[in-house]
């Protein structure tokens, strides 16, 4: 970060009752104009953190600094922040325009100024024509825009958004994600954005802050977080299920031993210095290998050279599939000495098969049949195999 | 928030202070004399004005509910009396009032003008002010039209031709109702009155909660024609009221009294000075005033009862239509106080269960 932070959280702790630790001493810096996404499962404390920053909750210890001012003595209504709630909390007794005007009225701006600002805001969210409507006449997406316009109208120094798309349906959500980011960036507001949906976080955030069980466990740019989850529980939370424990072979240090076969360690970036590790095989890392028939007598996972590139070969029984238009999601059962592994992959529905000028529909074998896949090792992420961090063992509320 | 708290608190405080201010202004003149009574108390403006002018005091009136309730409230507040003078103890409550020992004796010089038969308290703590008679009222026109003679005695009411004609208020909740029950006890004796009521019950007597419902809802005269009972337990002074408050300018009452000797009940109302009142002297003047002719002659048309003072002249309406019945039933107040509960319970068990 090359700018001094506008918002600094240090050591925020919050406990509800004796058994519920909502925030376990959170530290975070946010740069001006930055959109930081707090990403975590429900109950991880992200909403509580947002409420602490807004002043709606008082932390047990720790401090919130904004513009180098300690906010602990500043009551909610004097913080000049914006807050967008999950179900928007639009005032049911006020019209769209009155909702948007609320914060401006609280600043005692002259009526004419309020009027222009409200118009400006409604234009920003594309609802110019809706000013006099009742909020009940609006669709979900329109309400979301009104809520955004309302929270942006007083030009807050910091905007907090608590699952702002959470109550919308999927298509609308995807549409609004991009728009939301565009508007926030256009206005240039510093924003804290809470969500449990990683795609939303990737799409909106400049930086992602992953929270588990009241603690920040990883901070980074969306791509960095996606590419390199810091540990197994974060990877699980991010939806990666293909996690394969591996050990360096005692006799042959360049071999990695797994339950379903040994592979050469030099193919796997980041594995050099580790003896015990976890291989995170991304679902998008596989393609169908139709160069030779599948053979169950070979190890299920092994080194495999395709053209002049080092790859991995994986064989398993197709145990489920769902067609998703541009791709298939498949489940592959790979027999292992103890429990069989089930690995999931996203396979493009079209694949080039030698002919560079065309893509052909992928033919999947019948369920239960053997399937041979090529795995691209650069899409395998290595994580240290430590004892599972106990994020999940503490109960927490968010 | 704090400002609001302060605001509301101060409003409350202001309200409270206002409320706590004594109703009597702090200024000593004119002195205020308080007369408590039951809800039926009434008096003319000029009579009040005359007293206030004559004695340089201001009269304040309080009403405390029905006769029994009012007396109870006075007994409860005996240590810090609600009023200086209380008017409205009747002979059915006389013993309770005297036993509670809340009134001070006062032998008013005007007692000499009051017939002895009304003076039921020898200690002169309660002095008679007025009296009335509970008897039957009948719709004369109705009986004429139906070709049935008016009943002449209580016994008649049990006869088949008078079936379904009588309405009476409940003795447990109404003072004329109690008076009528006492009449039957005096007339038929403690052994006989329940048999009489059983006969009335068999003859379809209607019992109402209060006098108002009996008279206005059910009595053919009182209801203006919508009622279905031409006989009601009411007062001997009801016929003059029927003329005075007629809607059609009639000069003769539509109802007549049926008051056979020994079969009416006399209610005497008394006045007393609260013994803890600090204004005993002034209270004496009020009692004297209320026993004197000016007030006494105001009584009949205000409260529809007879003045106790023999020198008070009756209004023409009373002379014409409300001759006091002779020979009312006799029951001593202490007997009433001692047995009222038992009599009413027995009656209730018989009539309403």
């Amino acid at each position, binding site marked *: 970060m090359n700018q001094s932070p506008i918002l600094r959280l240090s050591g925020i702790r919050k406990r509800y009752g004796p058994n519920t630790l909502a925030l376990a001493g959170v530290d975070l810096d946010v740069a001006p104009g930055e959109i930081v996404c707090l990403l975590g499962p429900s109950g991880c404390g992200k909403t509580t953190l947002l409420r602490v920053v*807004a002043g709606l909750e*008082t932390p047990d210890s720790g401090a919130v600094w904004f513009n180098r001012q300690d906010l602990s*003595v500043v009551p*909610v*209504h004097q*913080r000049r922040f*914006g807050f967008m*709630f999950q179900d928007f*909390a639009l*005032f*049911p*007794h*006020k*019209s769209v325009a009155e909702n948007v005007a*609320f914060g401006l009225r609280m600043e005692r701006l002259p009526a004419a100024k309020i009027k222009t600002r409200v118009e400006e805001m409604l234009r920003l969210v594309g609802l110019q024509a809706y000013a006099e409507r009742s909020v*009940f006449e609006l669709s979900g997406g329109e309400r979301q825009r009104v809520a955004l316009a*309302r*929270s942006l109208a007083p030009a807050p120094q910091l905007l907090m958004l608590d699952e702002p798309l959470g109550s919308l349906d999927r298509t609308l959500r995807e549409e609004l994600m991009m728009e939301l980011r565009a508007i926030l960036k256009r206005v240039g507001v510093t924003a804290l954005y809470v969500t449990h949906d990683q795609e939303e976080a990737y799409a909106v955030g400049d930086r992602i802050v992953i929270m588990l069980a009241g603690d920040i466990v990883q901070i980074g740019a969306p791509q960095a977080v996606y590419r390199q989850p810091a540990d197994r529980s974060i990877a699980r939370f991010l939806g990666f299920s293909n996690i394969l424990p591996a050990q360096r072979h005692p006799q042959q240090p360049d071999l990695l031993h797994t339950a379903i076969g040994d592979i050469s360690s030099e193919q796997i970036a980041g594995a050099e210095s580790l003896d015990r590790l976890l291989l995170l095989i991304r679902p998008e890392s596989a393609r169908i290998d139709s160069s030779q028939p599948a053979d169950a007598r070979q190890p299920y996972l092994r080194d495999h050279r395709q053209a002049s590139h080092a790859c991995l070969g994986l064989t398993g029984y197709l145990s489920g599939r769902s067609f998703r238009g541009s791709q298939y999601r498949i489940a592959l059962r790979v027999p292992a000495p103890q429990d069989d592994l089930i690995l999931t992959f996203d396979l493009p529905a079209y694949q080039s098969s030698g002919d560079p000028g065309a893509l052909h529909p992928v033919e999947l074998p019948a369920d239960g049949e053997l399937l041979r896949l090529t795995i691209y090792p650069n899409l395998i992420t290595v994580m240290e195999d430590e004892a599972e961090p106990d994020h999940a063992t503490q109960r927490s509320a968010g | 928030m704090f400002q*609001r*708290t302060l605001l*509301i608190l101060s*409003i*409350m405080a202001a*309200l409270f202070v*206002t409320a706590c201010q004594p*109703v009597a202004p702090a200024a000593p003149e004119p002195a205020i004399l308080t007369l408590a009574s039951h*809800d039926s108390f*009434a*008096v003319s*403006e000029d*009579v*009040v004005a005359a007293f206030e002018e004559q004695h340089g005091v201001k009269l304040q009136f309080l*009403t*405390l*509910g029905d006769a*029994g309730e009012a007396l*109870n409230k006075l*007994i*409860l*507040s005996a240590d810090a009396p609600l009023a200086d003078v209380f008017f409205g103890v009747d002979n059915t409550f006389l013993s309770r009032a005297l036993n509670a020992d809340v009134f001070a004796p006062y032998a008013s010089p005007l007692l000499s003008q009051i017939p002895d038969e009304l003076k039921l308290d020898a200690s002169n703590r309660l002095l008679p002010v007025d009296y009335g008679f509970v008897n039957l009222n009948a719709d004369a026109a109705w009986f004429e039209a139906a070709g049935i003679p008016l009943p002449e005695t209580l016994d008649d009411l049990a006869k088949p031709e008078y079936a379904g004609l009588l309405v009476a208020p409940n003795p*447990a*909740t109404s003072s004329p109702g109690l008076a009528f029950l006492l009449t039957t006890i005096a007339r038929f004796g403690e052994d006989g009155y329940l048999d009489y009521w059983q006969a009335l019950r068999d003859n379809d007597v209607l*019992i*109402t*909660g*209060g006098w108002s419902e009996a*008279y*206005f*809802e*059910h009595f053919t005269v009182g209801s*203006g024609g*919508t009622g279905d009972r031409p006989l009601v337990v009411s007062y001997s002074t*009801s016929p003059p*009221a*029927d003329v005075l*408050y*007629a809607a059609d300018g009639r000069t003769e009452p539509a109802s007549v009294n049926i008051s056979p000797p020994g079969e009416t009940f006399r209610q005497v109302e008394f006045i007393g000075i609260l013994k803890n009142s600090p204004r005993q002297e002034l209270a004496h003047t009020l009692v004297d005033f209320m026993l004197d002719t000016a007030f006494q002659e105001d009584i009949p*048309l*205000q409260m529809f009862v007879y003045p106790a003072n023999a020198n008070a002249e009756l209004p023409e309406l009373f002379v014409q239509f409300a001759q006091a019945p002779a020979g009312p039933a006799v029951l001593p107040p202490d007997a009433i106080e001692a047995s*009222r509960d038992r009599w009413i319970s027995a009656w209730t068990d018989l009539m309403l269960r």
Partner: protein
Amino acid sequence: MPKRIQPIYILGVIPALFLAFFFFYPLANILRVSFTGEIGVQDGGIAEILQRPFFWRILWFTTWQAAASTLLTLAVGMPLAYVFAHFDFAGKTVLRALTTIPFVMPTVVVAVAFTSLLGRTGLLNQWLQALLRLDQPPLSLEQTIWIILLAHAFYNVSVIVRTVGGFWANLNPAITEAASVLGASGLRLFATVTLPLLMPSIAASSLLVFLFCFTSFGVVLILGGLRFATIEVEIYRQAVSLFNLRAAAFLSLVQMAITFTVMSVYTRLQARTSIPLDMRPRSVTARRPVTTIDRAVVLLSAGFMLFVLLAPLAALLWQSVTLGGQGITLDYYQELTINRRQSAFYVSPLTAVRNSLFFALVTVVLSLALGAISAYLLARPRSRLSAALDPIFLLPLGTSAVTLGYGYIISMGTLRTSIWLVPVAHTLIAMPFVVRTVLPALRGIDPRLRESAMVMGASPRRTWREVDVPILARTLAVGAAFAFTISLGEFGATLLVSRPDVPTMPVVIFRALGQPGLLNYGQALAMSAILMIVSALGLIAIERFRFEDIGEF
């Protein structure tokens, strides 16, 4: 942020003090005097009361008639509540005001109206006789349990109509619409979706009706004819007729214990069912009637009930201009303006109206302020204090008026003859109504509405003004309507020492009914009609009252 005491707890002291001074102190005082003092009849102790089968019979009767009356009131009130909540039609405000009028009518007058309609020679019997060619009147309701139940329903139906109706009107129609898409329809839809959502308000209003019927006095005494006795009637008998204070105090305690139990059970259930609700402004939920058979049925039944409800009032009005069978006349109204007896206590009808309105207005202000604060105190979620306080705020409703009245006499010092005690006593009865009507709506306010107002720069006070007040405005208006009618109807009037020089409308009615003569009867009817009109106008004014810049919600 340093921890500090929440302002609501500071404010909460006010209603607590009010109750302590005007309720618990006089109550404790009279109980002490009753059990230890030497006043009144001393024999006939508590053990004796308990041994009498009469006591248990009264206990049982009081309870079951209150339960039956509540059910009947609900049956009559729900269709009306539905219609008022869901349809816009001409004269709606007036009609709703009319349903509330019975609440203010003195029992004697209602008895007159009932008799003229339902009595042996009443209109209904006359019609039925003519219609069915009968020799005898077919209905004989006088002094039966039916007339008590009917009268209770007649009196209390507005509690259901206003409380449930107000709630229903703001319920999001999308919820029921969604359910009907899922295949629920008619009764099933109502039973599975609407009813549970309405439950908090149904429970709250039923509780109020139950308490009113449980402590019923006038209706049972006057219409039931003492064939029936509630605990309250028996307390009156013991305290007034027999002056057995010990027995009366014991019965009062029994009555309070039962009501307290009922209320505790209720508050527990209520706390469990209260959820933030998705509320809608009335403009969205109320519409012009749409023609479907379902709606026609509801409208018809509501119309019928409205007719039944209003018939006694119409009969009264009619009688006030035709009494005496001389054709239509305004004589009785004119008589009101004449001081025929030169009475020192005469006031013009206008003065009586003014006196009544004065007390009613003070009652409205006091009970709204105290009731709203109490509701805030009670609305705090999961607070033990709230759970404990809740039934206590309702206790005045379950307390014998006679007992409390005696308490005032011995406890209030010079205040006992002050006219200010009148609105105070009315407030004791009205406050629980305000609390019960405001509380469900208050609990229904999404806390995030307040939070978003605060984040946008509204101070706590401003937040209250901008969010709570407009959203609660409707229920506050309902509470105000109850306070107004309770005061106009002189509830608990027996409680007090009254000043004959400041008569209210009901007092004028009682006075007129105290003496024979058709002009007196006619005056009482005329004054009742005026009371009806004044309360209707007052209720309409309350409904129209709007806080300056908020929309209708």
